[in-house]
């Protein structure tokens, strides 16, 4: 940037308008925005912000710390430390099913002793 460019840049950047945006414009825009936002379905979904917070990289150290504490506390839990494993198996290959029909009473039959 040469001197002339710097001069122009300074002049323009220091230039200010002697008026500002009309407050009524802001009000109208906000009203329009609120009407529009009431139609947005996603707005009703409040789980997304919390989910995105959990998976975001922000406050990562804190999140890792908490996860480590939880992990260490579960390491002492005895049900997770099963050293032996027992398998319960049943072998049905040699079982013979026998039905004793001696005392069965069939309809229209006579019991003779």
């Amino acid at each position, binding site marked *: 940037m040469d001197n002339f460019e710097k001069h122009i840049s300074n*002049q323009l950047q220091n*230039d200010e308008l002697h008026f500002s945006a009309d407050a009524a414009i802001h009000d109208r*825009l906000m009203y*329009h*925005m609120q009407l529009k936002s009431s*139609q947005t379905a996603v707005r009703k979904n409040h789980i997304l912000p919390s989910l995105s917070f959990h998976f975001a990289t922000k406050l990562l150290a804190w999140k890792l710390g908490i996860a480590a504490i939880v992990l260490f506390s579960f390491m002492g839990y005895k049900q997770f430390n099963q050293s032996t494993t027992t398998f319960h198996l049943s072998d049905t290959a040699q079982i013979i099913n026998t039905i004793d029909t001696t005392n069965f009473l069939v309809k229209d039959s006579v019991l003779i002793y």
Partner: protein
Amino acid sequence: MFKFKPPSIADFTDEKLVEAMINGNSKAFDELYTRYSDRMLYYFYRMLGNDRELAQDFLQDLFFKIIDQPHLFDLKRKFSTWIFSIAHNMCKNEYRSRDIRNIIEKVENTDNFSQEETTENDWPCQVDDIFDCLNEFDEMHRTAFLLKYREGLSIDEISTILDLPKGTIKSRLFYTRKKIKKKLRLKESVKNQFAHNID
């Protein structure tokens, strides 16, 4: 003790604010308006021949467009580039739909009016001189000049906004600068001559 503080909307980037706006967050829009309203008002005021009312109308229309179609914004791009390209297209349409000569006449009238106000507000005369020269250029030259020297945008960003190659932007800026420099020098020499004659 650690206390969780939810992120303030003022800390959000422009792009994040648009994302929140798409999800119906009106506070995000409010923040965007606060950040950009003055910049865009200045842009419209200077681009539309120092017409205050027209600048206000354009400002409103611009933000209405943003509210109605925020999904058109590509979240990978910069918001400032997007908003200035919408503003530039609005000005371009305005120039097309109106008779440029009528506008220039209006500009001259409003310029006289604003100069009276400027003296009250102690505006530096140099800025008016620059804009006097700048008003002689077409809207492309004017936009490129304003974006570069007022907004401080890079050539890349200006080329995206105006949808022109970088080389064209550079040459337009160079040409505009050269012509303004020449005119300002001429003005200065006339002023000096006039002062010398009085002495």
